[in-house]
């Protein structure tokens, strides 16, 4: 208690603290009664209500204790709180709890309070100001950004090696494919939202165009996946141009609304054009991909085609196809990433970022805004189309249900959460938004609740996204030069001026 005791050795004002904690618990009670306490269930007689008062009581009690802990930190008893919070977290880990929800809240809440206590002990204050927090987060983001230079290749190697580790079972590979699909979509949307600064709420439309392009071409003409993949990308890009022409003259909110509408239009067309798309029943029996058109992943391939396992002299395993799909989406995602990383350093990418910063200034510099935006739109749509045709071939079945607005919202959430324009941010955000719910399947009931809560917290603490940090695409003085690149962002004040005047 060294740092704290000097600043505030006063006695604890129990009535005040208890009152504050009780108030917070009361607010929690009001919120948890409808959100947690009541649950509608399907009964044979109709819709019924189920109550879960014990979970409400547990939540309110934990909120009360948590608030008490925060108050005590403020009053200068951070060490005691730290020990108690750590104990609570440990209890959550090791002692069996009546429900899984209770366990997670206990671990999460305990950890948050423990972190606050550690912060208080280290800084001598219970809270950081917004500016300080921003600065610290910026610093972390910059560090992660720099670390991604060696972390990125390591992650790629790990991802490449993963299917050969003993860990890789069917379930984990499936989750890996799911994560990579969303990473690819996130990277694709990042071109429009993160670089060009156009808020696209209908990205899933291009995903749908890609998926249905493949499904329909395979269904009606028997085209193979490898022929359809570029075609699906092309058709999605064309639909992007088609949408873009009338829409790109709109700005900001209006643009977002029209893209939202476009997403719905595509979905409704798919539902209603029954004769062509199969309507709500979707399309089933979409052909699985072959090994680059050379070999099939079936045990007994059709006449005239080779089997993958025979070709390579392996024992037949259904896992081969999953592993192949995993590599396929990994390569597709990496192509998107590579493209974005390179294009950022080209006039096209720089023009996109300039459009995001100020599009009127762009016009005054002779940049054809419509063409630039159209290019961003078409390229992102093309990547969406690739992802869509991959989705179709992986599932073997698609229906309009897979392309609802919530999918667009999730992809957009990934981009915004990760930090607009940050490639590594998309990966981190996908792990949080898609990976965490997969890891906590038991808590599926609370999925949307936690999702919403997470978004609110991010918007409060870090409105620009977790890893929003931008490095210049070209440096004049190099990394060690005067007023280096870091001086431009976090430490804008002294360092750069010192570096400048020293010359």
């Amino acid at each position, binding site marked *: 208690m060294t740092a704290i005791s000097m600043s505030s050795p006063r006695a604890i004002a129990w009535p005040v603290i208890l009152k504050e904690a009780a108030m917070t618990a009361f607010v929690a009670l009001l919120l948890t009664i409808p959100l947690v306490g009541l649950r509608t269930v399907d009964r044979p007689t109709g819709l019924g209500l189920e109550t879960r008062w014990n979970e409400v009581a547990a939540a309110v009690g934990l909120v009360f204790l948590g608030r008490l802990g925060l108050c005590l930190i403020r009053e200068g008893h951070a060490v005691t709180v730290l020990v108690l919070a750590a104990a609570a977290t440990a209890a959550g880990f090791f002692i069996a709890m009546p429900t899984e929800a209770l366990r997670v809240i206990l671990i999460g809440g305990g950890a948050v309070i423990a972190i606050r206590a550690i912060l208080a002990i280290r800084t001598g204050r219970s809270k950081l100001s917004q500016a300080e927090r921003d600065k610290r987060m910026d610093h972390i983001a910059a560090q992660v950004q720099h670390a991604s230079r060696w972390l990125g290749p390591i992650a790629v190697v790990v991802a490449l090696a993963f299917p050969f580790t003993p860990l890789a079972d069917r379930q984990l590979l499936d989750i890996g494919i799911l994560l990579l699909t969303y990473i690819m979509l996130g990277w694709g949307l990042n071109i429009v939202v993160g670089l060009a600064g156009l808020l696209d709420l209908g990205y899933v439309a291009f995903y749908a165009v890609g998926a249905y392009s493949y499904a329909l071409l395979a269904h009606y003409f028997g085209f193979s996946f490898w022929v359809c993949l570029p075609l699906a990308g092309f058709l999605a890009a064309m639909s992007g141009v088609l949408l873009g022409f009338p829409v790109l003259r709109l700005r900001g909110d209006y643009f977002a609304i029209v893209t939202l509408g476009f997403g719905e239009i595509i979905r409704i067309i798919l539902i209603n054009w029954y004769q062509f798309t199969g309507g709500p029943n979707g399309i089933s029996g979409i052909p699985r991909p072959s090994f680059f058109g050379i070999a099939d992943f079936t045990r007994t391939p059709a006449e005239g085609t080779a089997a993958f396992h025979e070709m390579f002299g392996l024992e037949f395993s259904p896992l081969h196809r999953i592993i192949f799909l995993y590599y396929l989406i990994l390569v597709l995602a990496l192509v998107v990433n590579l*493209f974005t990383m*390179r*294009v950022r350093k*080209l*006039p*096209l990418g*720089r*023009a996109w*970022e*300039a459009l*995001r*910063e*100020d599009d*009127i*200034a*762009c*016009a*005054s*510099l*002779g*940049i*054809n*805004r419509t063409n630039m935006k159209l290019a961003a739109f078409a390229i992102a749509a093309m990547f969406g189309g690739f992802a869509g045709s991959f989705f179709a071939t992986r599932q073997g079945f698609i229906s309009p249900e897979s392309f609802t607005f919530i999918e667009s919202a999730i992809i957009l959430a990934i981009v915004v959460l990760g930090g607009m324009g940050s490639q590594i941010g998309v990966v981190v955000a996908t792990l949080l938004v898609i990976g965490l719910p997969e890891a906590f399947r038991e808590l599926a009931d609370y999925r949307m609740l936690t999702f919403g809560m997470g978004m609110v917290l991010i918007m409060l603490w870090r409105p620009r996204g977790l890893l929003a940090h*931008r490095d*210049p*695409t*070209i*440096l*004049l*003085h190099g990394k060690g*030069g*005067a*007023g*280096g*690149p870091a*001086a*431009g*962002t976090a430490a*804008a004040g002294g360092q*750069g001026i010192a*570096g*400048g005047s020293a*010359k």
Partner: protein
Amino acid sequence: MEDTVMTGRSMTTTPLLTVEHLTMRFGGLVAVNDVSFSASNGEITAIIGPNGAGKTTLFNCITGFYTPTVGRLTLRHANGKEFLLERMPGYRISQQASVARTFQNIRLFGGMSVLENLIVAQHNKLIRASGFSIAGLLGLPSYTKTEREAVELAKYWLDRVRLLEFADWEAGNLPYGAQRRLEIARAMCTEPVMLCLDEPAAGLNPRESGELAELLTYIRDEHKIGVLLIEHDMSVVMTISDHVVVLDYGRKISDGDPAFVKNDPAVIRAYLGEEEDEELPPEVKADLPEVAKRAEEGA
């Protein structure tokens, strides 16, 4: 009407920009009313006038942000090529007619670095060299060479506006005066034949204004381009401009060299208002107290 005001100046060379009968209406409001003037190569033409006189509207017409209601704007390049600016979409005016501008409220790409701001300004040259990104994505040498040249041009202007040390800074983090200078450097990086500056000295201290005047003179004398300048700071306008156009309520009220405009009664009236007393001849004025006295007696 022009004939009555065009007195302070003789036409020597073929003008770079000719504005003829330019009128801009917004609904019932006539922001610019039948304005004609011309600006020459290698000269600084200042456009002054009280607030709301239509200066920025005139600028927005010239740089393609507005399409004028009536009028003709002709830009002549040194090689004889002519451009009718009122018929060109906004971005083409910079891309093809080579007119660059700055803004009254600075419009930099704040999140990008200073150098990147200047590279984006050379977009058209670079995107052609990058084969609309295809050669660039493949990393062909033709593009890298052009990019190196672009960086050299950026360096030249950064050196001119004394921002070379800050090249890797985020533009939004620069002090105000530096942002003004950077915006001018960015406009110059488009290699224009005419530079339009909208109140470049606004918010600058006297020392910075002095430096700005030096920079503008340098641009005029070394690069031989036309500079069109909206400015309220008369110390800047009167020292550096070769030609001044005065607007009031959307009309041109005076046009000539600085000395002529300074003494033009119409300009003094617009800036200081009319003095009614001076309308009366002196002998009448002398009689005024007498007249007042008699009127009092009569009542």
